[in-house]
């Protein structure tokens, strides 16, 4: 692999094709010759892992639909039918349900990596915002999918989440009735959720294309957080990034498979194996683990409308991250104070996740309120102040210098 060649069609057919639809050239320039920074670490393999998870969810999902019935009287039994009667049905369903969790684990690592290395900063703001949109779509898709087995947690999760919209002044009730297609969560709700759950992954795939497009326009960030200056700073995507991504993917699949085969219900709730009952709410209702930090924020605020606003704001604020953190230095490697605050922020998110799973009473509520305040303070107070007053460490002259010289301690 010397230098970065451009695509040269070898045979007559490919030459004919290239003159009409240059798709082979596009693939070549995007995934073969594409220059990637030579210092990428394994945190950069999660983009590939996420693409794999999206494909895996779409494939297992399409197959599950061949056996699933979206009707309030049959949905629960059809899921049990998949588990007991359908050939390999248990495997397909466990892959799909655990796959959702794996998708979120990967996306959280991917997002925190972006925050640590400042991947949202100019010129990657649009790339970052597209990522936030994908994350929002993932949350919606995960919620809609969790409703489909029509167990107790499905039913009551759907009730609680759709009731967020009843907090809207004046038109709240009208909006909720419209969402439900009835006066409570029922069969019309299930059927439309099924339709949308099938639709959204393809919308995600579309936005992923934009995300990758934007990535290939501005180039990848890297652990040093400085732009590549020439061939010495980059390596071709294939074989270097391809093989590294593949290795990361295989390791991630081992982790995924461990859950599928040994702990398939660990990340779910036993209550969802009870058929939906509109007369009884489960005693302890919690969302799936990946929503817990936001659930804690919702419950921290003792006012319905403000709680719902805080929940949406906690995600929406990510859109503004590129402008809240205006430090010119991207990577936390060269931002000693930011690095500490980053890890505190990670701990706060995990803490909120823990509190979201606890009952809303006593000390848990107070702790949620403190952490919710800190969550917003991180974005609105700490980052703007750090960008102004932090004394950053000197940046290396180039990526190759940062790799070849004695690596900076961190």
């Amino acid at each position, binding site marked *: 692999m010397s230098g970065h060649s451009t695509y040269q069609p070898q045979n007559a057919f490919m030459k004919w094709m290239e003159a009409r639809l240059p798709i082979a050239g596009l693939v070549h320039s995007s995934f073969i010759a594409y220059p990637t920074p030579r210092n990428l670490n394994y945190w950069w393999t999660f983009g590939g892992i996420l693409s794999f998870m999206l494909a895996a969810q779409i494939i297992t999902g399409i197959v599950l639909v061949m056996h699933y019935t979206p009707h309030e009287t049959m949905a629960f039994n059809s899921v049990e039918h998949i588990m007991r009667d359908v050939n390999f049905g248990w495997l397909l369903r466990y892959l799909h349900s655990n796959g959702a969790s794996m998708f979120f684990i990967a996306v959280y690592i991917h997002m925190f990596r972006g925050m640590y290395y400042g991947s949202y900063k100019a010129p990657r703001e649009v790339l970052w915002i597209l990522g936030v949109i994908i994350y929002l779509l993932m949350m919606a898709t995960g919620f809609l999918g969790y409703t489909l087995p029509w167990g107790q947690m499905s039913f*009551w999760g759907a*009730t*609680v989440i*759709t*009731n*967020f919209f*009843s907090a809207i002044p004046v038109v709240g009730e009208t909006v909720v*009735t*419209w*969402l*439900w*297609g*009835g*006066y*409570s*969560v*029922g069969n*019309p709700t299930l059927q*439309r959720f099924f339709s949308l759950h099938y639709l959204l992954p393809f919308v995600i795939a579309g936005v992923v294309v934009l995300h990758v497009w934007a990535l290939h326009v501005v180039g990848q960030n890297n652990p040093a957080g400085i732009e590549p200056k020439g061939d010495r700073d980059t390596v071709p995507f294939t074989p270097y990034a391809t093989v590294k991504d593949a290795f990361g993917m295989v390791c991630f699949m081992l982790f995924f498979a461990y859950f599928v085969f040994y702990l398939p219900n660990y990340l779910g709730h036993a209550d969802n194996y009870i058929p939906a009952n*509109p*007369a*009884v*709410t*489960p*005693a*302890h*209702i919690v969302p799936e683990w990946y929503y817990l930090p936001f659930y804690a924020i919702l*419950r921290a*605020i*003792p*006012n*319905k*409308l403000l*709680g719902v606003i805080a929940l949406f704001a906690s995600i929406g604020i990510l859109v503004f991250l590129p402008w809240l953190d205006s430090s010119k230095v991207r990577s936390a490697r060269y931002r000693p104070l930011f690095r500490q605050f980053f890890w505190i922020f990670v701990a706060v998110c995990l803490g909120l996740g823990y509190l979201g799973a606890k*009952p*809303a*009473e006593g000390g848990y509520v107070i702790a949620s309120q403190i952490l919710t305040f800190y969550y917003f303070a991180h974005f609105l107070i700490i980052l703007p102040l750090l960008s102004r007053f932090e004394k950053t460490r000197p940046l290396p002259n180039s990526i190759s210098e940062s790799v070849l010289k004695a690596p900076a301690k961190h």
Partner: protein
Amino acid sequence: MASTAASAAPTRRDFLYVATGSVAAVGAAFTAWPLIYQMNPDASTIAAGAPVEVDLTPVAEGQVIKVFWRGKPIYVNHRTPKEIKEAEDVNLASLPDPQPDSARVKKGHANFQVLIGICTHLGCIPIAHAGPYNGYFCPCHGSVYDTSGRIRSGPAPSNLALPPYEFLTDTRIRIG
């Protein structure tokens, strides 16, 4: 589009562009409306939401029954004289959503408290005869209601809603 220096002032053609675009926009809105409106409750759902009649004769004093109307649980609480007195004697100023007990029952039927058993916070079903006031307690996010269904503490913004209902006789009601 055709904005060269010579045609800076609005021309007949500009008018035609705007008029054509406006007609297209109105047409698109009219076309979108059925696609949006189809999500509202359909005729069968509305028909199934017709009023229901409930015979209260078998409901003993101190007992709470749950009936369904429009997929919503309706609690009918046959309150004891002690519970009625407690509900009536509350200092209204201390309530987050002040409402006298008399406004939450039908005149002359204070013994029967009829309300929609859906927490006004996020739609869970509160447990009857539970919580500090022995009224209703929502297990989801900890809202506490008294025997009149009034919010006393927790995140719920308002009192439990009352369904439209009337007494046909002293022991028979029609909800809806």
